[in-house]
């Protein structure tokens, strides 16, 4: 699996972005960029090549679901793998994310190994 892919972490909590960055580092991913909400993430995605998005569900300004919908509606970005991070696996949220075209989702808390296997599963299915 290509560990040099550029991953965008989207979370309004700086600490959670650091936690995910730390977990990614443990499994070999170091090419990481960050955004603190969906709107900033969208600007980042348009400004530079990003291979994979890991986004929190619950954020101010533009939620993870709104970001996902915006990415899927954009001709240039719509194939970008998108992993949604949620605090709880609420069925209605999962259904909404699947309908919007999420690649997979992961429920907090999660280990570096579980995160890695989600990423590999998504990349392996492309």
């Amino acid at each position, binding site marked *: 699996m290509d560990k040099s892919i550029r991953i965008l972490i989207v979370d309004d*909590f*700086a*600490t*959670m972005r*650091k*936690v995910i960055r*730390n977990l990614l*580092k*443990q499994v070999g991913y170091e090419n990481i960029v960050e955004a603190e909400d969906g709107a900033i993430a969208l600007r980042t995605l348009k400004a530079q090549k990003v291979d994979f998005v890991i986004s929190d569900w619950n954020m101010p300004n533009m939620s993870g679901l709104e970001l996902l919908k915006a990415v899927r509606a954009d001709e240039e970005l719509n194939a970008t793998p998108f992993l949604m991070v949620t*605090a*709880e*696996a609420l069925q209605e949220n999962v259904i909404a994310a699947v309908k919007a075209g999420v690649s997979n989702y992961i*429920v*907090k*808390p*999660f*280990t570096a190994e579980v995160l890695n296997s989600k990423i590999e599963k998504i990349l392996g299915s492309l």
Partner: protein
Amino acid sequence: MDVRFINPFLDATENVLRTMAFVEPKVGKPYLKKDNAAKGDISGIIGLTGDLRGSLGLSFSEACIVRIVSNMLGESLTGIDNDVKDAVGEITNMISGVARKKLESEGFSITAAIPTVVAGKSHSIVHVLGGPSIIIPFEIEEGPFVVDVCLGNGPT
């Protein structure tokens, strides 16, 4: 407070800290707390509503939370800073999420509010229901922390 509500919070605390901070906290004997005094130097508290109503507090000694957050971030922290405060909110949120999922499997549907974090010596944890609360004491090598739960029946 019904003792059935203790285990979901105990298990959730162990699960979250083992998964995210790579620590194995030792659990002590739960006891009843009748005042508002927090047991640690920094606390997170989150309101819970639904089939059950109340609040969950977590209160950490400084050395304990510095170790936990250092492990979570992969950095060596030296004291309580904004990263630690943010992390206490996130830990409170995650423990509440895991515990609520367990309670849901026992037939109690509960939603959570946004956690608040308070730091400083001699601060208080004021529960939504006023108390008394159940304290579940934990210990890691660097120091103690407690889970402070006060849950009752939801609105009728």
